[in-house]
């Protein structure tokens, strides 16, 4: 070894290879490795916030940017400094420190951070080499089949959570599950009747036998994880809303009754924050990169239970606002999920009627409207004078609606977005359902910001996640007051980040410890106890002026 020679032991090469001397002053070891063509998993953008760049110093010295020195043997963060010049060194790079997955847009979600390829479960190529990333939502369950050799998603299936038949919101299910017989029925509804068929379908479609599934990672809200494990959720249903568990758990398929994979297959349940801020949101705060952002950032996940997370400096504030199922299409005349045949967008051209509709392709006819279309309608309806501030169709608005687009029933007035097509009806009663849902989310955001002494203008990034997938029209979400006082440039639509976080944790085992640390660090805000929430909620019940 010559003077000052630096050698790197890569996971996939038999012998350690020489690393060229540092060229740029102030560069980190991570920079040097990247320049050598082997970037590390610098997930947090080299801010010292993650563990993605941790490598082993086997020989030599490592000088941190602040001047301190670490001597071998040591685990060092390659972004935090460089090897001491003139000193020979040997560094081993473990597989989990190598970047394998760059930020990307996957079918229904976006991952904003890079990830290593170091699956959370042992992999045997050719025989035991696939994994499942699972998002168990109150209304919708999604299963992604992942090739654990490449890390790529090879199939995705989603369907209604069959527990819906036993109660369409979490509280009804919690109420039922107090009785052990009903609790078991709920567990079977999601395990045997929802997950089982989805896993079989996704495997059949991708041509992957269930025997090749090496493990699974599950994200979901706290109630869903209680019901999945057969845990009595009663304490989640009444104040002070205490969960039985929110920690990361590793169970076997046999313990969970997953009989479609081998009994010893490991299944990881991701950690959550609290009773109503669950593992789904923790998953989201990793996969959006929010934990690594500098400025104040928000994550707003619009599901049946709107969840909001604010990162401000070192603080992590989390809360839940009960939006209800309206934005997932629940309890609306023609509300559906974002499925084939759903109207995803509505816009009124200068001539107003007929409005332009964007329909998700793949179905012979329109089946209804999904959340993003309702958001469009609130904004466009108000802009064009169809709707007043109170969300009603007043006399002037009504007179402008051509006969073929009018709809009237016992609940009041409405419009047929497509002439005489009942599948496209939106009524005043629908709007009356949407307004409190919108107000609860808007007031939740404003209350959380106020608690941290911030206003919407101070926020660097607002990640908008949720059941609408990647469809939502951002200017309309702002115009209808769902995201009050924000500007389009602050907002990034990220889709189903719960599934995204489950995928991330599956392919990169360093993710779960970071999730657990985030969960332990968060302050849970109870909106009922926040002075000013009620006032803000009432203010937000109307549609802002166009």
């Amino acid at each position, binding site marked *: 070894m010559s003077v000052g020679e630096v050698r790197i032991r890569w996971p996939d090469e038999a012998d350690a290879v020489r690393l060229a001397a540092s060229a740029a002053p102030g560069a980190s070891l991570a920079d040097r490795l990247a320049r050598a063509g082997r970037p590390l998993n610098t997930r947090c953008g080299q801010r010292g916030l993650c563990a993605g760049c941790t490598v082993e110093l086997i020989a030599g010295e490592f000088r941190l940017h602040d001047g301190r020195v670490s001597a071998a043997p040591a685990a060092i963060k390659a972004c935090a400094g460089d090897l001491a010049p003139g000193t020979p060194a040997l560094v081993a790079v473990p597989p989990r420190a190598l970047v394998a997955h760059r930020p990307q847009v996957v079918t229904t979600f976006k991952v904003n951070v890079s990830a290593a390829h170091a699956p959370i479960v042992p992999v045997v190529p050719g025989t035991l080499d696939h994994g499942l990333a699972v998002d168990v939502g109150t209304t919708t369950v999604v299963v992604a089949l992942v090739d654990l050799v490449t890390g790529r998603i090879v199939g995705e299936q989603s369907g209604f959570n069959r527990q819906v038949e036993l109660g369409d919101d979490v509280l*009804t299910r919690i109420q039922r599950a107090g009785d052990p017989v009903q609790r078991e029925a709920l567990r079977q509804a999601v395990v045997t009747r929802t997950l089982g068929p989805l896993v079989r379908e996704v495997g059949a479609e991708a041509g992957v036998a269930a025997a090749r599934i090496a493990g699974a990672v599950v994200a979901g809200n706290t109630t869903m994880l209680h019901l999945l494990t057969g845990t009595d959720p009663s304490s989640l249903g*009444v104040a002070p809303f205490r969960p039985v568990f929110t920690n990361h758990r590793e169970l076997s398929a046999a313990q969970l009754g997953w009989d479609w994979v081998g009994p010893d297959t490991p299944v990881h349940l991701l950690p959550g924050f609290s009773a109503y801020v669950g593992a789904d949101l923790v998953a989201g705060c990793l996969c959006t990169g929010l934990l690594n952002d500098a400025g104040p950032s928000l994550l707003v996940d619009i599901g049946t239970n709107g969840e909001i997370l604010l990162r401000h400096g070192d603080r992590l504030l989390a809360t839940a606002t009960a939006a209800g199922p309206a934005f997932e299409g629940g309890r609306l005349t023609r509300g559906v999920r974002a499925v084939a045949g759903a109207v995803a967008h509505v816009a009124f051209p200068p001539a107003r009627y007929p409005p332009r509709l964007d329909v998700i392709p793949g179905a012979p006819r329109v089946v209804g409207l999904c959340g993003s279309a309702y958001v469009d309608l609130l904004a466009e309806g108000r802009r064009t004078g169809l709707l007043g501030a*109170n969300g009603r169709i007043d006399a002037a608005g009504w007179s402008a609606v051509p006969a073929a687009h009018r709809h009237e029933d016992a609940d009041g007035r409405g419009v047929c977005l497509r002439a005489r097509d009942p599948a496209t009806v939106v009524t005043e009663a629908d709007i009356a359902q949407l*307004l409190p849902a919108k107000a609860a989310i808007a007031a939740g955001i404003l209350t959380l910001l106020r608690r941290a002494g911030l206003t919407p203008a101070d926020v660097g990034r607002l990640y908008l996640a949720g059941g609408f997938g990647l469809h939502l029209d951002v200017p309309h979400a702002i115009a209808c007051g769902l995201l009050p006082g924000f500007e389009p440039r602050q907002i990034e639509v990220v889709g189903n980040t719960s599934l995204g976080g489950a995928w991330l944790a599956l392919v990169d085992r360093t993710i779960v410890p970071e999730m657990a640390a985030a969960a332990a660090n968060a302050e849970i805000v109870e909106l009922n106890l926040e002075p000013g929430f009620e006032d803000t909620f009432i203010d937000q019940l109307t549609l802002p002026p166009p």
Partner: protein
Amino acid sequence: MTTLELLAQAVAAGKAKDAKALTQRALDEAIAPTEIVDRTLVPAMTEVGDKFKRSEIFVPEMLIAARAMKEAMELIDPRLAAAGITPKYTAVIGTVQGDLHDIGKNLVATMWRGANFRVIDLGANVPPAKFVAAIQEHRPHLAGLSALLTTTMPAMAETVRAIRANAGVPVKIMIGGAPITQQFCDEIGADGFAPDAGSAVDKARALVESVP
């Protein structure tokens, strides 16, 4: 327009700041607090309730009007109390144990005040024993129980039982909240149910007036 007419308008339109300022102006003009209540606030809130029943306004407008009414009452209440004036009927109201939702309950309370009831608000997450103690202390004609969660409906049943068994006062019990139905009301033996704050007023009047 007179101050009272302007005040009635401000309340109906939900202009809380104006309502407060106009109430102060009325008091400065030496108009009797009882007159402000009887001739202005009660008719204004009755009108709001009627419009709601005719579907001319929705819950948001009602909440906004109630907020204005509350501002006005905050100035008037201490004067009424100081003068020893109490309305004919008294009600206690609260959200049952385990439930912290109180926006609907607050609205009903304000509408009852607007119908000239004296209303004692026990807040949210109120245990049965606290309802019983408050009823024994204030001897109200009416007790209002609110629950917004499916999971706190049993606590509502429990509270009705506790009041009947332990209060020793012939109080009428009214229940409400999004998951509550007339059928549930019959099951747990409450005296009345109302699906919204508009009908909550009519029902309350009917119940207290049914007692000789």
